[in-house]
């Protein structure tokens, strides 16, 4: 069944919300109506020297207005993400989506949950926080400057960790969980590999159901090219080897399904 679309989305707004972090709202024809938390879109630059799409997670989904919010990091000078950051209201951007599976809401509904985000893994936790009906403890880790904190505070109890100690617990998200004496029955997490590794270990030692959103370099974004694989302990049905596709089988996996 097909629900992916390629569209020219109209830029509604663009603002810088932290150093190198930008927030853009775009109006889609159908993609916003189809998307769920934890999914992503492929964004294409106009620059023909950059031929691969950039996979960007969905930060907010506004079905009524048919709009999506992407919060993304500009990764350097002359990059595709820098080009996105220069888009202004009235400009258009080609996108493909919604892609990937998204976070399952049902396992966490009515439970005491952690939503854990780290770095550029923070944004996708916002739409999940908005849609999930649960006892939400939002644990967000930043290197230094924080973003989206006001939005998070409206959608649960927010706990912050910063590496430089500028806010919340000094250290990482696991330090914030320990420092605040928190516990949970279900975990949803998105962030860099070292963070996911620590979250996975914590969840498995404490027998907590845990969903991790993985990241890997992608090409097609739809499951055809087998670029963005992650290792799995079991033989995967599609690949017949110990590899799942992050873009198609994920990006969200049960922590026990994947090696981080």
């Amino acid at each position, binding site marked *: 069944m097909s629900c992916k679309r390629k569209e020219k989305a109209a830029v509604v707004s663009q603002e810088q919300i932290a150093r190198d972090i930008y927030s853009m709202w775009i109006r889609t024809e159908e993609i916003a109506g189809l998307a769920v938390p934890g999914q992503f879109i492929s964004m294409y630059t106009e620059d023909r020297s950059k031929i691969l799409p950039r996979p960007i997670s969905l930060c907010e989904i506004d079905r009524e207005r048919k709009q999506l919010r992407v919060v993304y990091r500009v990764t350097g000078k002359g990059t595709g993400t820098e080009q996105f950051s220069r888009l202004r209201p009235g400009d258009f951007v080609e996108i493909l989506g919604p892609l990937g599976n998204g976070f399952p809401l049902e396992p966490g509904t009515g439970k005491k949950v952690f939503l854990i985000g780290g770095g550029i893994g923070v944004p996708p936790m916002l739409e999940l926080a908005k849609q999930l009906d649960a006892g939400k403890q939002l644990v967000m880790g930043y290197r230094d400057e924080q973003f989206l904190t006001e939005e998070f505070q409206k959608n649960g109890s927010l706990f912050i960790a910063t590496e430089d100690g500028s806010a919340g617990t000094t250290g990482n998200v696991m330090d914030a969980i320990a420092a605040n004496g928190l516990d949970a029955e279900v975990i949803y997490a998105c962030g860099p590999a070292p963070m996911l590794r620590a979250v996975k270990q914590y969840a498995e030692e404490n027998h907590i159901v845990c969903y991790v959103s993985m990241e890997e*370099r992608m090409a097609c974004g739809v499951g*055809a090219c087998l670029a963005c694989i992650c290792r799995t302990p079991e033989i995967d049905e599609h690949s017949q080897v110990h590899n799942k596709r992050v873009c198609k089988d994920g990006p969200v996996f049960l922590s026990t399904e994947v090696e981080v």
Partner: protein
Amino acid sequence: MNTRNFDLDTTVNLAGVELKNPVMTASGTFGSGEEYSEFVDLNRLGAVVTKGVANVPWPGNPAPRIAETYGGMMNAIGLQNPGIEVFCRRDIPFLKKFDTKIIVNVCGKTIEDYLEVVERLAEEPVDLLEINISCPNVKEGGIAFGQDPKSAEHITREVKKHAKQPVIMKLSPNVTSIAEMAKAVEAGGADVISLINTLTGMKIDIHRQTFAVANKTGGVSGPAIRPIAVRMVYEAAQAVKVPLIGMGGITCGEDALEFILAGASAVSVGTANFYNPSATIEVAEGIEAYMRQHKTEHFRDLIGLVY
């Protein structure tokens, strides 16, 4: 004559197999078509060329497996595939639902591996076999057969002895003389030649201070390599009589026509699928528009027009 609406004959014959049009997918960029069938009506393609399949499942290389390069990309997937049994059970029945030709790309580490797959496919509803002797990303097999004319001729001859379907030999550009390689596989009995596979390259990630892909080297593809591919198709066309399938950075009808005028009977679209999922259809439509514009009724009349 009404130049706007005359009937176009876009068919092309490859070793006795008639394709409705000359546009196909490049192996490895399109899976077995299922993922892209959400964007592309597979019935409109001349053929689907599957990702390479071996006798047993292959795990492929570690990640990262790809990197972007200027006007192109580099991959070192390493021919991950589910093995021929699952492929026959799952991928062939899927493709049979569509009115398009099925070309199965075959890879192996030894000649015996290749032959096992070729024999397994003998009774399957597959139209052509494409033998991959040109993957730069695996240590054994693959390109080991594709850089020496004697080895290439030998494996072609062995495959031809066992193959029930016509055989396409896919050549590597990482050779001194593409004409020599084309002659060698023709001498071995190749029915069709496809070229080019990717060019071996390297990219350094200066931020991580290591190789951009875990395999260190990867195969470069995309628009940046198109002039090299067109030149090689032209040289091969001068050297052999068998039909050629041209590929390397094709994104639109105009790109495809360069290959066709240089001597290719058909074209494959690869990397372009990644930034434009409907690139194959746009290439087919672009070729038709060109035929109308140039009042060319039969596609085959365009092949090799520059010489």
